[in-house]
């Protein structure tokens, strides 16, 4: 699959232009309602763009039947709308590439570990973490 096409979210955040960086920073404050970890560090945010005050957040969910789907989307919209220079926001939920625990950042892994959740080692192929 196309796993490698999604760069590490922390790297994306750090190299983003200032205005987009503000959107990334806002997304860092949004946690998964079921885990006290940012959606950025869970690797759920695939891309952020900002054009003429319109922000687009391309993101996925850890689980297709996620009951917190609406809550996360609302939280993202609220957080991004509060960024100076953002007039409107669109959340684009995508499932390509499929999310796996490989997308979790090192910060996210440390935080999950603090909460007692053990993750499989990063694998070289997509989805392998879920089927081992």
């Amino acid at each position: 699959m196309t796993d490698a096409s999604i760069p590490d979210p922390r790297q994306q955040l750090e190299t983003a232009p200032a205005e987009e960086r503000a959107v990334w920073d806002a997304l860092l404050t949004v946690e998964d309602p079921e885990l006290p970890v940012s959606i950025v560090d869970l690797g759920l945010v695939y891309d952020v763009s900002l054009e003429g005050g319109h922000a687009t957040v391309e993101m996925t969910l850890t689980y297709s039947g996620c009951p917190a789907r609406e809550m996360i989307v609302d939280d993202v919209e609220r957080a991004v709308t509060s960024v100076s220079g953002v007039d409107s926001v669109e959340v684009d939920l995508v499932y390509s590439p499929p999310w796996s625990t490989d997308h979790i950042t090192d910060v996210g892994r440390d935080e999950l570990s603090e909460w007692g959740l053990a993750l499989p080692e990063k694998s070289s192929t997509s989805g392998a973490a879920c089927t081992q």
Partner: protein
Amino acid sequence: MTPSIPDDSRTETLEFLLAIADDEYFTGHRLGMWLAVSPTLEEDNALTSIAQDELGHARLWYDVVADERSTTTDDLAIGRGHDDRRNSILVEREHHDFADAIVRSYLYDRAELLFLESIRDGDVEALADTASVALNEEPFHREHAAKWLEVLHATDEGTERLERAFETNLEAASDLFAFEESQQDALVDAGVLARSPDELAETWETEVTKTLSELPIDVDSQAVADAVSNSPSTNGRRGEHTDEFPAVLEEMEPATIDQI
């Protein structure tokens, strides 16, 4: 790999994805009915967790079709009528007992796995990735059904119920892979599927026959062969459904304000 659905097979592809979505949707709906009435508290959790997964997978595919047709997921999931539904009749009937639920899940999960793998191994990247998401959430469904198949034959009553469930459900499974030949050709030519439903049916028959041969129950293997070779008398893939279907559609209709 192509990024999206090829134009010349768009209609056949979207109709096929609706069939897969409808399968997932009614499977999830029927499994959800076990909440609070399954044999154990753990089973309440297991069956409704599986139901939630299947509804999530239905949503994945309805979302794809909704985007392509500029409509909404709700319109596709809730708003389509009897003749527009393309689910197999296997998944639409009420569960008779727990053995029925387990056998139904087993037969359906094997077919679902084959469909999803065929999409994942196809050439359309967006669909292949979506199938991968669903596949990652499926292994425990198969483990769940397999574990119960090992347990339920422990008593005479359990054996009888399993045998009855296989007989009834194998008959209802004959439309699982019964897509029109022209649609099958279009799906394979377009790279949406790596293997045609006819080929998947052969694999399904081999796997189900093997499982039955390993269980100490008496189910004629001819019933499995019939399920894939007989032309279905009621074919959900053509919009034909059982007399239990109108009731399930009715209970899914959203309540209007004055009903609340």
